[in-house]
């Protein structure tokens, strides 16, 4: 089911998935993030835009980077933030989720930032919140992680400007990756020239070819002349059964080493959504090397999340004005 993440006038009300969003909206998110990123360099790293708004980080799954950058983004906008880390195993999921939600709503919350290990959780919550509440998806199961995709697009744009002429390769465990799914949708929407996915057959979705991407099973041909390399984390905790012989074997074939990096263009940038498994999907010398923009991605996460949160809450103001 596709919930309505846009208002009638086409503004963001929720941010659940990249799917279905148009290029001008993605560009607006990046443009706003560009403006917000200057705030981090001030003496007072804060603007009063969302003063008095209450934002709850509802994390049903562990996260360090995403949760802390969402928290920091909300604080830079002067919102009040609460963090809830909730274990999903305790009670039956559907019921506890709605109960939790209604309790938190009763505290006059304006926005939920939701991470959950079940695909569709954020969407489900968006369908059940009161009309004045916005929901941001901070990662749901294997489905989507739209703010991660946008901070990646923002990082690419900072280094490469024009999307149309780019060749972007995503390496690794695409089957379990909500990040890759959202990235591919964003790259396609922004009109990237060529999107490649590289990985063993067992870790690529069976419908890869329908995503409009070129599929490669070896690094030499997959990385040839690419401008952007996105390595994905080998999601050991998500893997069921024997999809891979071993992490060492994976590193030999698909780990990004200095040697394999040479197949790409000399000015190619190397990205990773984190946390990185050194020596599994990426060599330390590459992760820490001159072409790596991995830590920049983290920094950009704050500005992108500021943009998305302020845009969603602004559309709520517009709604209120109309009513």
């Amino acid at each position, binding site marked *: 089911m596709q919930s309505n993440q846009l208002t009638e006038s086409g*503004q963001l009300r929720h941010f659940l998935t990249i799917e279905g969003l148009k290029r001008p909206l993605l560009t*607006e998110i990046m*443009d*706003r993030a*560009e*403006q*917000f990123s*200057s705030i981090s360099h*001030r*003496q*007072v790293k*804060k*603007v*009063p*835009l*969302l003063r*008095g708004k209450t934002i709850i980080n509802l994390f049903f799954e562990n996260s360090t980077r995403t949760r802390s950058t969402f928290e920091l983004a909300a604080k830079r*906008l002067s919102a009040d933030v609460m963090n809830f880390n909730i274990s999903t195993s305790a009670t039956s999921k559907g019921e506890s989720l709605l109960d939790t939600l209604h309790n938190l709503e009763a505290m006059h919350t304006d926005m939920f930032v939701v991470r959950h290990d079940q695909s569709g959780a954020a969407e489900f919550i968006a369908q059940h919140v009161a009309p004045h509440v916005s929901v941001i998806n901070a990662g749901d199961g294997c489905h989507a992680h739209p703010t991660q995709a946008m901070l990646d697009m923002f990082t690419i744009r900072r280094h490469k400007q024009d999307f149309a002429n780019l060749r972007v390769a995503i390496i690794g465990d695409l089957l379990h990756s909500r990040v890759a799914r959202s990235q591919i949708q964003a790259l396609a929407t922004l009109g990237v020239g060529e999107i490649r996915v590289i990985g063993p057959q067992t870790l690529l979705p069976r419908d890869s070819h329908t995503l409009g991407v070129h599929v490669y099973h070896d690094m030499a041909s997959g990385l040839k002349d690419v401008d952007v390399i996105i390595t994905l984390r080998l999601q050991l905790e998500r893997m069921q059964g024997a999809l891979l012989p071993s992490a060492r074997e994976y590193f030999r074939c698909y780990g990004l080493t200095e040697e394999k990096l040479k197949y790409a263009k000399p000015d190619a940038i190397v990205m990773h959504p984190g946390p990185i498994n050194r020596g599994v999907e990426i060599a330390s010398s590459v992760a820490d090397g001159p072409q790596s923009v991995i830590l920049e991605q983290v920094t950009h996460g704050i500005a992108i999340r500021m943009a998305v949160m*302020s*845009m969603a809450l*602004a*559309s*709520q*103001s*517009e709604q*209120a*004005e109309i009513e």
Partner: protein
Amino acid sequence: MTMPKTTAEIDSLLEEMAETIREELADKDPLLVGIHTGGVWVAKALQKILGEDFFDAPLGTLNIAYYRDDFTRIGMHPQVSPSDLPFEVDNRHLVLVDDIFYSGRTTRAALNEIFDYGRPASVTLAVLIERDGRELPIRPDIVGASVILPRNQHLKLRNKDGLQLEIRAAGAPYAE
């Protein structure tokens, strides 16, 4: 006074304003800050009259969109360039410039933003036009012209081969 509209009329107001700034601030190494978008145009014009060396640093610009008091009523404002103060404001004398002073709310927002950058020694507010309708205990120090306009009329500074002022009735579109 009658409404100045033409580029020539506005230029002579700017000359007078620049002279007052020179008299009051010449010995204070002042810094210049314009409020987007019209205030930046006025600030640039003043800078040109006063000369490159009058101010101690390049022009600073403020985009007060994130400091406005109407977010919960009307949401995000259209995108303009972000604020950029290319100097330390601590213990400095600032000249804050806007095109039209009306309710005082823009100035309130700009002052709040300036104080997030540091603690200036003083802020002098210079505006091209002051119109009646103040809603806050804030008033400009240096004024090009003071005018009285009916509530339903809006005043807008344009920048097309020089600065011009345009009056329109509420709801009517601006001529492009």
